[in-house]
């Protein structure tokens, strides 16, 4: 009897631990599941380019040049402020489609995001 109680207690403890672990695991997945991607701006080039991501992805652009750049979509759906060195801009792409963008200060710099 004593052994049974002990076993039951152990089992309950195990269940609680598993539940906590489960909750913790679920929480962790929730963060990692929110897809993110990086685009670096270096030597007047956006890379990677083109970039293909699933819908819902948040893309972060980081300017690594000594010269300011910006990120402006051609259809005007997004536009960053000017990014000085090491400054970033993020935008979340919720709808599938092809988004072309450029630096309106240096318009030779162009990029494309394909959202699936």
């Amino acid at each position, binding site marked *: 009897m004593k052994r049974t109680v002990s076993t039951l207690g152990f089992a309950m403890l195990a269940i609680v631990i598993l539940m906590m672990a489960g909750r913790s695991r679920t929480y962790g997945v929730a963060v990692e599941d929110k897809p993110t991607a990086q685009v670096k701006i270096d*030597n*007047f*080039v956006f890379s990677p380019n083109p970039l293909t991501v699933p819908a819902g992805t948040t893309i972060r652009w980081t300017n690594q*040049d*000594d*010269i*300011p750049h*910006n990120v402006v979509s*051609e259809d005007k759906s997004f536009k960053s*402020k*000017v990014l*000085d*060195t090491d400054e970033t801009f993020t935008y979340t792409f919720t709808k599938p489609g092809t988004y*072309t*963008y*450029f630096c*309106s*200060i*240096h*318009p*030779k710099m*162009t990029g494309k995001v394909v959202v699936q």
Partner: protein
Amino acid sequence: MARKPKDEILHDHNHDGIDRRGFLKCMAWAGTGAFCVMQGGVLKSYSLSGLSGLSGKQIKGDLCFVQISDSHMGFNKPANTDVAGTLKAAIDKINALPTAPGFILHTGDISHLSKPEEFDGVDQLLKGASAKDVFYVPGEHDVIGDDGKQYLERYGKNAKGSGWYSFDQKGVHFVGLVNVMNLKAGGLGSLGNEQLEWMEGDVKHLSKSTPVVVFAHIPLWSVYPEWGWGTDDSAQALSYLKKFGSVTVLNGHIHQTMQKVEGNVTFHTAASTAFPQPKPGEAPSPGPMKVPAEQLKSLLGIRDVNYVQGKHSLGVTDSTLE
């Protein structure tokens, strides 16, 4: 790198065997700006760094003025952590000229990030220049974030559109153009139809013997389109100037001196007062170039340019200071 024929910079008008490569070898950093003299409709330009070696007679013309460019106030990266100091040095050079210039042309990128304090800093320093009149055109760094609203309020009160205008000085007609607005993805500098129409009307009434000086930030000729160093609709603007015997185009943007002659037109780009940029195609990008201090002087020089009307001849004499 293989280049398309359309990118060639200098035609061999003078049969002197100077091709594009040879021309590029002749280029030298001017350092701080350019001093221009109109003599009988012929423009001569000198690097500000070498002017102390010239006599007053050599640089006295019908009209004297100075071009400075790309002061990038606010820039603080390793290529130059004291752009205020180098602009001040450029102004000291202007003030040391044997003949005080009539005025200053600033061909844009006054500021680095269009911040009010950056414009204020340049304005304050230029108050110390011997020439009190300063004529500006905007660079792409001067119209960031507000489509040039602040630039227009500060410098373009009497200008048309996004800041273009013209004026006359001692028989010379000056046209200031804006080619940094409404830039299209994948494109170069742009003047736009409204400005082109204005320009056509502006120069139409002038006699063909009037010397014309056109100034704008981005080069009005194809210096290096791969780096955006050109203006998409510049050919249209230049077509309005065909009747004139003497046309001089002054630009900035590329932070180095370059010249080209094409028919009746001489093109000049000025050095920056802030930092040099690489020669076309000789670096991964046109970003700021850090030059060792001891190397800089050997790259500074005097550039004496003489364009002879009618001969399509460009005489270039470069000599370094050391």
